[in-house]
């Protein structure tokens, strides 16, 4: 009984963990995107309440934008582009030389009238998919989403299968025992 309990606990933990990691990964991507847009929205020149965020994004002050919307786009872009030199910093956050240069490039491309997607594509063409925080879904990366689902599915099947079987066995044994008892009474 004790063994059964621990095994069940183990399987349940696995299921919960895999489901949790799956949803966590998703929640994080959405949170990242919404956070970056929030931050970009908060740093409009008219908003003095967000002075802390403004200080963090001081580099944007080096670049003049005629349009407040362009400024937001610039801040959003530098948040979603990853610095290729540093392991896990976006180019907004990093002080590496390459991050400086990439920010300037983003600015230049925007001044040329390129769209957000064009700027991202420009960087991806040079630095690969690594440079953009949103991974592309292709035949290799699809497993990032599929593996947890498949794993959770298998675990669920195992769980259901294991739970059902002893019950039917017990029931039949009990019925046989009952029949036997009835027969004995007769």
């Amino acid at each position, binding site marked *: 009984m004790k063994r059964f309990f621990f095994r069940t606990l183990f399987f349940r933990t696995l299921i919960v963990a895999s489901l949790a990691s799956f949803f966590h990964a998703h929640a994080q991507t959405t949170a990242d995107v919404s956070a970056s847009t929030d931050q970009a929205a908060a740093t409009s020149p008219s908003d003095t309440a967000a002075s802390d965020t403004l200080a963090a994004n001081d580099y944007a002050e080096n670049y003049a934008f005629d349009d407040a919307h362009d400024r937001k786009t610039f801040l959003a872009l530098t948040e979603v582009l990853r610095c290729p030199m540093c392991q896990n910093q976006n180019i907004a956050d990093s002080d590496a030389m390459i991050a400086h240069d990439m920010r300037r490039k983003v600015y230049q491309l925007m001044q040329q009238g390129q769209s957000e997607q064009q700027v991202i594509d420009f960087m991806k063409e*040079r*630095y690969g998919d690594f440079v953009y925080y949103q991974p592309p879904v292709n035949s290799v990366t699809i497993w990032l989403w599929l593996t947890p689902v498949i794993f959770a599915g298998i675990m669920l099947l195992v769980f259901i299968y294991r739970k059902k079987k002893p019950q039917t066995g017990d029931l039949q044994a009990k019925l046989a025992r009952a029949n036997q008892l009835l027969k004995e009474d007769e």
Partner: protein
Amino acid sequence: MMKKLSYSILPLVLFLALCFFLYQGLFSDPRERDSSAVSKSFPSFKLPDLMDETVYYDNTIFDGQMTLINVWGVWCVTCAIELPYLEGLRDQGYRIVGLYYDQDLDPQYGTKTLQRVRQEVKQTLSKYGDPYQFNIFDVYRDTALDLGVTGAPETLLVDAQGVIRLHHLGDLNERVWRGKFLPIIAQIQATQAVE
């Protein structure tokens, strides 16, 4: 009984699989990435010589010969350390061209004058060795960005058709040269021999 045994082994198998996966991760280099520049043509450029701003270079420098493009700067310590090794390669007959970039020279970031940088370059090259046929000065680091350069030193192998065949991030040493460069060079020479 057999069935029960196989079930109780399952967690162990999963655990071992996880161990194997994580163990492999210990030896993977997070900086190791496939460069996007490889097998593309060298991005078009027109840049001055580092030492003489009246001399300009463009993509014709690759015509007809295999070239090693070494991305470097005096501000980079590892670059200075690999200079003697590069000099050895030059003595073996390889053509090495420097792609020089310096953020301090950019009025937007630094305060250095071109005169001072030239002086520092001369000092460094006379101290550690000068493997370069010439140095291209990537003034605004646009070409470095087009190449997907993330820092220095980096070395690119460009064939006689101006196509990038190899992009190495980090310093060039005997191990890298034998393991990464020589096989590709042999390939290039083999196709040239056929033609």
